[in-house]
Each structure stands twice: as structure tokens, then as C-alpha cells.
């Protein structure tokens, strides 16, 4: 449990958790406030990737300190997210472009 974590874990962990919360909240507020679909996609993708990276770094730090050996399996989620979130963004962007009302209608 989190009873006696050393200082080199709690200080970066605190900073990273606060950073993750602020970044993710910023991205989701951008989802509400921005006008166009492409701007919303940009804001959400950036905020979510950075927030997930910070939370996973905190998780790696805390579980390494608890187990007193390097625990790195949280990096699996980070690798998966980094591989996968551009794919989702590109697919959604293609769908948005295809369904854009300003797109010229083909003849056939």
C-alpha cells in the first residue's frame, strides 16, 4: 500500500498526476468549446495522449517503489495507446472529410 513511499516517488508522482488532470480536462473542455470537428479532434487527441502518459508514468513509479524492483508492464498500455490513437484519429478524420457538407459531390 501507499504507507511509506520515498520522496523520489511521491514528488514526481504528485506533479504528474496534477499535470494529467489539467491536461485531460483541457482537452475535454476543448471538445465542448471548439467550433469545428477537426479542431475538436486535435484537442482531444493531444490532451488524452499526454494525460495517459503522465498517469502511466505515475503508476510505473508507485508500483516500482511498492515492489522495490522495476515494474514496467504499465508501459504496455502506453505503447498500445501511442500505436492506436493516431489510427483512430485518422479514421475519424477520413470519415469527417467524407461526410463534410462542403465536399464537392461526385457525378455518378
Amino acid at each position, binding site marked *: *500500500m*501507499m*504507507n*511509506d*513511499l520515498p*520522496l523520489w*516517488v*511521491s*514528488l514526481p*508522482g*504528485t*506533479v504528474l*498526476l*496534477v499535470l*494529467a*488532470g*489539467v491536461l*485531460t*480536462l483541457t*482537452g*475535454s*473542455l476543448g*471538445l*465542448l468549446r471548439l467550433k469545428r*470537428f477537426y479542431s*475538436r*479532434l486535435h484537442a*482531444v487527441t493531444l490532451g*488524452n495522449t499526454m*494525460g*495517459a502518459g503522465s*498517469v*502511466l508514468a*505515475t*503508476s510505473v513509479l*508507485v*508500483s516500482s517503489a*511498492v515492489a522495490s524492483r522495476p515494474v514496467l*508492464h*504499465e508501459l*504496455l*498500455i502506453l505503447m*498500445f*495507446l501511442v500505436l*492506436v*490513437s493516431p*489510427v*483512430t484519429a485518422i*479514421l*475519424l478524420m*477520413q*470519415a*469527417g472529410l*467524407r*461526410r463534410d457538407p462542403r465536399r464537392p459531390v461526385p457525378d455518378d
Partner: protein
Amino acid sequence: MTTVLYWAGMFALCCFALALICAAIQLLRGPTPQDRVLALDTMYVNGMLIILVLGVQFGTRLYFDIALLISMFGFVSSAAMAKFLLRGEVIEP
């Protein structure tokens, strides 16, 4: 010193819950279908982050597997819905 980490986790949880509410509002409001898919994807990632922070707070290893599963299902559902919006079919013959 651990109390600071605990309260930072609480702050992060509140931020993620607010972000989840924003994404839910966007899911209900979004003018086009791709906006709704984007909001659903955001909700998946925010829920995964909530579960990861809870795993740090409770100090258990179980929450990691749940977070991995949620991120995988989120990707599969978002990709399938984007493919449906793109082509009109998910699995093409």
C-alpha cells in the same frame, strides 16, 4: 509525503470526472455522427484513466488489466464505428 500523492490522485479523479461529463454532454449534443464517435472515444480514454488512478490509490495490480481491456475495446469500437461512417459497412466482403 504520501498524503500529497493521495490528494493529487483525488484532484486527478475530479478532473477526469469533469472531463467525462464534458464528453457526455458532447455525445448528447454533437451535431454530426463523427462528433459523437469522437466523444465516445474520449469517454473510453477518460474511464481508463480513472481506473488507473484508482489502481494507484488502492495499490492493487488488478486494475491494470481492466484498464488494458478498456483501452483495447475502446479502440476496436471507435475503429469499427469510424469504418462504418466511412464506408457504410464494418466488414467488407
